[in-house]
């Protein structure tokens, strides 16, 4: 498994774990077990974790695989990333159009809207990293 594939796995797993934790907080928020500002704090903490954890995992992987770390991303890996980003972009674009439709036509609180947009962004990222991993596994 190449270092870039491991990076993609690290990002994918971090996002899945972070989103699951956030989903629990959101459900508890809707059930009024915890207050909304706790949900927002959870979101902020998870956002920081989602940014910092992959960086930490990258650093650890790079220390374990120094050869891969010094090698620049090659053309095939760049191609995988671009192809995966293109797929994720369409998901993001469609999701944002749908969320705009629901904002106009359905009653929603600001928190609902924020959760919707966050959800779409997360799905787009999951698809991006998932597609990258698939390309790496397939080899082309």
């Amino acid at each position: 498994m190449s270092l870039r594939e491991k990076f993609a796995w690290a990002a994918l797993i971090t996002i899945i774990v972070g989103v699951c934790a956030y989903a629990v907080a959101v459900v508890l928020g809707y059930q009024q077990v915890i207050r909304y500002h706790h949900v927002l704090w959870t979101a902020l903490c998870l956002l920081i974790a989602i940014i910092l954890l992959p960086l930490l995992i990258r650093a650890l992987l790079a220390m374990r695989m120094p050869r891969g770390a010094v090698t620049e991303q090659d053309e095939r890996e760049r191609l995988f990333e671009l192809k995966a980003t293109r797929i994720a972009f369409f998901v993001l674009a469609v999701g944002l159009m749908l969320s705009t439709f629901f904002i106009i036509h359905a009653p929603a609180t600001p928190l609902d809207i924020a959760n919707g947009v966050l959800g779409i962004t997360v799905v787009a990222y999951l698809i991006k990293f998932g597609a990258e991993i698939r390309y790496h596994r397939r080899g082309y």
Partner: protein
Amino acid sequence: MDGEITNNIRRLRFDHDEMTQQQLADLIGVTRQTINAIELGKYSPSLEVAFRIAAVFKQPLEDVFQYRGKSKR
């Protein structure tokens, strides 16, 4: 595209003191996985990488890569 690109990299590596995929990858500046994908015909490299591979083996490009296109009738 209907054509097929084949290559002799595996044989050329063998002829060059059984060079490993990793050694070739280091010389070209790509990952070992990319060399493996090129060898298996799963990935067609850019012209630049193709020329670099040919240069490592000191062979003309057409001796390393061959293109078999379907003839149009």
